[in-house]
């Protein structure tokens, strides 16, 4: 991994690798965001990847991408504590694997640059048809969240849990904020993002990135950049009282989510301790929740905990029979008490450490996990996957118990069956 300064607030990160058949370039922009700007950035990335100045409609852009051996213009929007990471990237087959010896990597890089910096504009605005189409798509995407109940339940738990904090805003905001966006708002959001976001450009390839960096330098230097790289690690402020939220719907299975807070220092060592605690509590099949709530009590198919290291929180979720709600709730809290009381063995903690380490090392073998790791690493003093794995290995049983003792229940969410059932 080699880090270079490309422009003001724009750094390059080169990950040289010969293990992939593809090369990828990703532009990761970090920016604080509220409800309206989250929606604006979400809509923006749909618009920028719909068409460009050179390819003025989605059919011609998609044809161009497919002719480049299915080059993939990807975008990704990540909640990162109270910030958002807006990612635009392109992944393309290496030139030496094309069927007829075509050179495609330069063309793919051009396409990415064109998508980010040269969108299709008409009279200083995005083309209205493109704006309208993508607004419809984004609203459909937000509404479609309800189709998968597990994700829907977790997302509503987070919204309640982080009430009043930027992290409470759902991944793409809400339909009202999207609906209220004007074409002018989007033009401003585009400009704001390019001028004010801290940018990390990752290149994963066997070829040196110098030429690519030069092109980005040219574009970013032509803008009046005003960037502050902030440390965005923000712990969740607990309100003291447990919050309760319940929803009813025409569902067969109840969804129980418990949101917890955990004291987290700034040091990565304390993040590693909390990560091991959350994993041994509700991670793999060796965890307290899997072995007890699922296997011994046979209450559910899944009962798992997921950690948010930027907020110092974790959410336990489970799909259960509605009449087992109390049993599952008590079962989860009992297992937490077990750890708090020191009823956790060296073997259990070791299982978690060895599993987490094993998974971390395998991040090196996937472009997507490598890319995300090294995008976020800029906020962790360039920490490598191996550095963090070492921190995980250093966690002790005592550390896990100490973390457990700081855990507080914050939010309880339940999605249950509506009384007036629909017989269809």
């Amino acid at each position: 991994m080699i880090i270079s300064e490309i422009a003001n607030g724009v750094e390059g990160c080169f990950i040289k690798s010969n293990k992939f058949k593809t090369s990828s370039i990703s532009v990761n922009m970090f920016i604080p965001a509220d409800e309206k700007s989250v929606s604006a950035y979400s809509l923006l990335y749909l618009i920028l990847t719909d068409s460009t100045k050179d390819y003025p409609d989605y059919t011609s852009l998609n044809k161009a991408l497919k002719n480049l051996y299915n080059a993939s213009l990807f975008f990704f929007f990540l909640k990162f504590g109270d910030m958002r990471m807006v990612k635009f990237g392109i992944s393309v087959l290496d030139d030496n694997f094309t069927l007829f010896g075509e050179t495609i990597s330069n063309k793919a890089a051009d396409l990415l640059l064109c998508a980010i910096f040269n969108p299709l504009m008409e009279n200083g605005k995005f083309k209205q048809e493109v704006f309208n189409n993508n607004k419809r798509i984004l609203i459909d995407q937000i509404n479609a969240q309800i189709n998968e109940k597990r994700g829907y339940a977790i997302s509503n738990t987070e919204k309640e849990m982080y009430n009043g904090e930027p992290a409470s805003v759902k991944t793409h905001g809400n339909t009202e904020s999207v609906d209220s966006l004007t074409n002018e708002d989007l033009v401003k959001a585009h400009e704001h993002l390019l001028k004010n976001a801290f940018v990390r450009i990752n290149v994963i390839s066997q070829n040196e990135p110098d030429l690519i960096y030069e092109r980005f330098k040219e574009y970013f230097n032509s803008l009046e950049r005003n960037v502050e790289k902030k440390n965005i690690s923000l712990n969740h402020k607990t309100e003291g009282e447990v919050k309760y939220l319940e929803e009813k719907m025409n569902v067969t299975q109840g969804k129980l989510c418990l949101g917890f807070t955990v004291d987290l220092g700034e040091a990565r060592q304390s993040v590693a301790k909390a990560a091991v605690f959350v994993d041994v509590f509700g991670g793999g099949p060796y965890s307290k929740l899997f072995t007890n709530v699922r296997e011994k009590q046979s209450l559910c198919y899944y009962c798992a905990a997921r950690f948010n290291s930027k907020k110092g929180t974790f959410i336990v979720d489970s799909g259960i029979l509605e009449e087992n709600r109390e049993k599952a709730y008590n079962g989860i809290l009992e297992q937490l008490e077990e750890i708090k009381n020191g009823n956790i063995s060296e073997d259990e903690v070791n299982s978690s450490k060895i599993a987490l380490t094993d998974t971390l090392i395998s991040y090196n073998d996937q472009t997507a996990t490598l890319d995300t790791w090294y995008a976020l690493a800029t906020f962790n003093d360039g920490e490598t996957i191996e550095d963090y794995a070492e921190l995980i290995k250093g966690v002790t049983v005592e550390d896990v118990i100490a973390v457990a003792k700081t855990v507080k229940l914050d939010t309880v969410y339940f999605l249950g069956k509506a009384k007036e059932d629909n017989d269809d």
Partner: protein
Amino acid sequence: MIKTYKNSLIDEQVIVYKHKSGLEVYVCEKPEFSSSYAIFGTRYGSIDTKFSVGNGKFLEVPEGIAHYLEHKLFESEELDAFARFAKTGASANAFTSFDRTCYLFSCSANFEENFRILLDFVQHPYFTEETVQKEQGIIGQEIQMYDDSAPWQVLMNLLGALYKKHPVRIDIAGTVESIAKINAGLLYDCYNTFYNLNNMFICVAGNVEAQKIFDLCDELLITKAPVIINRFMPNEENKVEKRQVEVKLPVSKPLFAIGFKEKCENPQKTLKEKVLSEIILKSIFGNDSPLYKELFDSELINDSFSAEYFNGYSYACTIVEGESDNPEKVREITNRYLSDYIVKGIKKEDIERAVKVYYSEEVCGFNSAENIVMNMVESAFLKTPVFEEFDIIKNITEVDVVKRLKEMFDIDNSSISIVNK
């Protein structure tokens, strides 16, 4: 016997070892990787609900039993498989589909130990009435989770509309009622039939050495007399059971799945038929196609629109799915385009572009050990030579495409499944 398949164009090779039991072991060495991925699988899935061994009588078993067996195989008299993997750090799992069950692990350390655990637990079933009973609650909740999943329901309802008798219409996990009939004896009957090594395969990719894996297989595989399995497949008529099926669930916008049922003269489609189908679907339904443009610009679909070729033992259909406020209109326009394509064929440039996409997907599959294994499973399952698809795409003709188009799409023999709000 060891055979090496090489593909110099993409600089990859796969080594296949045929064990004396009849089982084939596929290995792709990727020394530059940090991790590895392994599958031990059997040609046994949810559709195998009635079968016989050799000249024996046909046995009919409860729906969902293959999946139930998958859950129970992780248990043993002493330490269950998850507890054993917990000591090595591997991430272990399993899945059951319509026609196969696969046990897998991925790891970046302790490969040999993990491989030993995998081969051991899959070959040593241990079921008691008590442990079988215990699983009812867990799988019952897995079933209910899928009951609430609109994308799953739209697919299963479509299969129920397309097929009158073929067991592909049955949910993989069965129902709460059907799994209540499962007992230890039935699980052993199914195990002893389908988990014969002659009906199984092993595929491994990543930071491994092929010869070491073959040696481990020689040491660990327990050869039994091969069994001849007769799968009872009901005589499925060549017409759909229902033209349309609708249910209501909490969804944001109606979900639809349109299915085109295809004749199955042989139990399995050939690799060439499958590759051609994939390329045709990319050309007709891709986001660069005229059909996509007409549907999208009329606001009849959004970016969730997709098409897949769905096939297995004695079933084959094309499924087109998405979200729409007017699924019937989507069906009407799709049918109009298909009728036109059947007469006029697909433009050469559109096919060429789809071939590039298909080729690239195949090559990029080598970016991940998991994908490599999944592709090898396809070869092992169908007993087709590795990399054969690369030769097929070089020799596709317009005549092939038109012929395949006609086989795939019989508009009078199609169904639509809708999940309404």
